[in-house]
């Protein structure tokens, strides 16, 4: 679980709470959970109101243990909503000795839940659902807005007072709010004329280039995060954004899995990557596969083993950088992992999905065992029965499109990893050997995408040299 929804606050701002008392109800994808407070004090200020979504680990409210702390808590809460912009989201909140933050509990078992201090909700905290939901603005004019208009305004971060109403007697309807929001962010872009495309497709860098260094540009003026708080309201905006492209056939919002993939791919844009490629001769590897296949060893297990063996000699390639958690990039550290956990990208057979089951401790597991584990992981991945530490604990990833005849491709670096290896197909190629004799050999092109902030070209090239040596002389693999 990475996000939850606040269903209801059982206590209001200003209420005193006892330790162990249930103060709010949170909705997960399974059921409603009562959240208790561990300390007693006053519920000083609520950051995430009922109906809002929040990420696991995010601050939902401030509890103050003493009277003076209540003021500090309120100031913190006000400061949090006032300074919310994309760049400042990464600043950690100032810690106070007496104030505790009540956070969304992560369900047990998810060892790699996202811990983020960024607040995702861009709503105006003053717009509470209350008796005076449509109270007058400062000019004294009464604002009349329909229920749906109010919901859209809340999720788009629009102040109703700024919107011109087009309904009967000048009431504000939802379309007015959406039009206002579109004008505000698109700078003149309407649904018909898409001058500024808020979702530029990420075309992979040209596959023709073999070895080069480049840094991808930062995404320019990404639109503010819109909160899709209900399933029904997300269809209309999506349809409006893309209506210019030849008529809409149908609109299907992202599933939770697709959403996670999209978010992770987008995050990779924050990392400066480079790609190095090498061609590997597959003759011996394929012969070995031929011998081991009847004994239950799969090609994936063999690749995982080869990669793991190579990685033990190049620990930087399966290290993790802690720059993810915010802070100045220059202050980061490289965390070396004790074991090689090889994640392998698989697609789901009956729906559009992508997941990376992990073969843990691959460097010390033999290929037969790896093959057995892989079969089990694959079965459970396809029935969506993997736990988070079975798909999120990888520190190196392999992606294989060779079975589709793809000669060469470059994969996108998953967040938190140093490198990902893309395997192409094994094709018979006319080659010349050292003595100048011409022959035909099966060659496979592999592309290594790596985090160039810490892994340098030579590190990548040396790893690939080791990997190539192992794959071209695979007998070593069977003796581990």
């Amino acid at each position, binding site marked *: 679980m990475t996000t939850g929804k606040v*269903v*209801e606050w059982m206590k209001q701002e200003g209420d005193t709470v006892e330790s162990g008392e249930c103060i709010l*109800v949170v*909705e997960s994808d*399974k*059921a*409603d959970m009562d959240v208790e407070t561990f300390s007693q004090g006053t519920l000083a200020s609520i950051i995430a109101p009922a*109906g809002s979504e929040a990420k696991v680990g995010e601050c939902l409210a401030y509890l103050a243990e003493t009277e003076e702390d209540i003021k500090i808590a309120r100031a913190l809460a006000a400061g949090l909503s006032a300074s919310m912009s994309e760049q400042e989201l990464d600043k950690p909140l100032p810690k106070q000795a007496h104030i505790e933050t009540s956070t969304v509990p992560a369900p047990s078992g998810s060892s790699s839940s996202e811990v983020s201090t960024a607040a995702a909700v861009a709503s105006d905290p003053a717009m509470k*659902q209350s*008796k*005076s*939901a*449509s*109270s007058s603005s400062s000019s004294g004019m*009464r604002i*009349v807005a*329909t*229920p*749906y208009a*109010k*919901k859209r305004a809340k999720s788009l971060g629009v102040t109703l007072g700024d919107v011109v109403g087009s*309904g*009967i*007697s000048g*009431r504000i309807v*939802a379309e007015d709010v959406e039009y206002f929001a579109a004008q505000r962010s698109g700078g003149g872009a309407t649904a018909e004329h898409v001058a500024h495309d808020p979702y530029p497709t990420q075309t992979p860098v040209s596959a023709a280039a073999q070895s080069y260094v480049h840094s991808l540009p930062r995404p320019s003026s990404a639109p503010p995060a819109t909160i899709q708080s*209900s*399933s*029904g309201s997300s*269809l209309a905006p999506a349809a409006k954004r893309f209506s210019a492209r030849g008529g809409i056939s*149908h*609109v*299907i*919002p992202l599933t939770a899995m697709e959403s996670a993939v999209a978010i992770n791919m987008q995050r990779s844009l924050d990392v400066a990557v480079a790609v190095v490629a090498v061609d590997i001769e597959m003759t011996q590897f394929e012969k070995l596969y031929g011998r081991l296949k009847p004994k239950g060893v799969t090609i994936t297990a063999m690749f995982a083993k080869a990669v793991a063996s190579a990685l033990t000699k190049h620990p930087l390639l399966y290290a993790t950088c802690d720059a993810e958690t915010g802070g100045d990039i220059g202050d980061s550290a490289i965390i070396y992992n004790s074991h090689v956990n090889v994640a392998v990208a698989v697609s789901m057979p009956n729906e559009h999905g992508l997941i990376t089951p992990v073969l843990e401790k691959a460097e010390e597991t033999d290929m037969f065992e790896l093959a057995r584990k892989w079969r089990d992981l694959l079965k459970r991945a396809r029935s969506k029965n993997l736990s988070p530490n079975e798909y999120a604990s990888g520190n190196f990833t392999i992606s294989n499109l060779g079975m589709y005849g793809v000669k060469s491709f470059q994969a996108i670096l998953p967040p938190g990893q140093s490198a990902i290896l893309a395997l192409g197909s094994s094709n018979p190629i006319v080659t010349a050997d050292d003595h100048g004799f011409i022959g035909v050999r099966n060659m496979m092109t592999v592309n290594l995408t790596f985090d160039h902030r810490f892994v340098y070209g030579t590190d990548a090239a040396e790893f690939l040299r080791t990997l190539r040596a192992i794959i071209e002389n695979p007998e070593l693999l069977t003796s581990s």
Partner: protein
Amino acid sequence: MPKRPAHSSIPAVRTTQTSEITTRASASSADSLTYDYDLIIIGCGVGGHGAALHAIEKGLRTCVLESDVVGGTCVNRGCVPSKALLAATGRVRDLRNKMHLASMGIRVGDVDFDVEGIRHHADQLVTTMRTNLSNSLESVGVDLLRGHGYFVDNHTITYELPDDKGGTITAKDIIICTGSVPAVPPGIQIDGKTVFSSDDALKMSWLPPWVAIIGSGYIGLEFADIYTALGSEVTFIEAVDKLMPAFDGDIARMANRLLIQPRHIDAHSGVFVTKVIPGIPNKVPVKLELTDAKTGEAVDTLEVDACLVATGRSPYTDGLNLDALNVGLAKGGAISVNDKMQVLAKDGSIVEGVWCIGDANARMMLAHAASAQGISAVENMTGNENVLNHLSVPAACFTHPEISFCGLTEEQARAEAEANGFSIAVSKTSYKANSKAQAENEADGMAKLIYRSDTGEILGVHIMGLHAADLIHEASNAIAANQTVADLKFNVHAHPTTSEVIDELIRNAKFTAPELAADDSSAHADAMAKKTFTH
């Protein structure tokens, strides 16, 4: 005079008459020579109908007196037309839910509807039900008389219509089931077009784009379901601090999450409507003045297209001449009755031979409660003592998804437990675990079972989700049969059905049956049956 339809193959046993009725002989009653009938039922709604059929079964010469349309509120202005509207609009909602359909691989184009067609469906159903009702009475020999009746004494009724002389009839027993009308708070003027009660709302003469609904009980919720399904927006105004105050807390929270939050609905709670100024459809909005329920301060003024008053129903007892029986009206206009449905006079004594069932006694304002009370009254008048356990009468709200319950809410159960020194336990389950609901991709919902932890006595069951209105009967019948949680463990539920939600609920209820004398639990059940319910 109601005509039997030409196609009816049921031979007439008796024909209805409008002239004065002379005394007749009856085989079944010892008093037959004194009275015209064994039983006169005033009001041919669902209560009167249920009582009449049971009376015939018991061999009583029965007559039913109706001053308006046969079928009463339920058939003409309540359950029947509202369910027709909910069925049609529910389908519009489903077919327009492109995401839900796409998840099952279905693509739908634009779904259109016309309000007149939907209204016609409801009208047709009402006419059919009305005819069925009067046929079912005539075919078993009930005399259906037309007129507004009033008491001369506790065995004599005079009835008349403006264009009909009517007559005077006598009976050993008389049941009053004159029903109820929509309650309208003071200060609110109904114009039937832009400010209306459920009576007019069901006519669906036009579809207001934005409707303010005063009251968040089941009537308000059902109408919100209808309006939002057709694309209109709704604002709830509730006098109590929280919405749906009569529902169990967990159900109200889930209803808020499933029926209100994701729809184009918002709400004001803890607020009275002190003034409503009607408008003109699609031209001039209706203005509502809202004031804080506690402080009386002005809170806001709403400008909406229409206002539905759904604040409850008031018992209707006009023109009965209850003074002749020395009977007064309790608060809210209800006729006071004891547990056997016998009418009580102002001094608390039983008025011999006079009974009152249904909405008129305000014990439990539901159609099936009325007929259950009618059956109980008939049992009592034929010498079999009977007290209806109201905790075993289920209630349902036909929103999408449905809500149903029987017995006490958790809050009421805890209060009972505190007052009487026992403890309760609660079993809860989610619809998400149910394969049938998942197959339909409609797995939002929950069920809840409240029971005594010492005896396993079932105190209340609440369900929200697919088919909730049908599933509640296992629980309500269990309470009626005085079954405990331990007994339910042997119930078998077909797989895969949504009834397995109840199976899960029962299995989750941790209870081991101790040795317990039968007397204790039934005495407690009797004590609980004395609770009154208005819904």
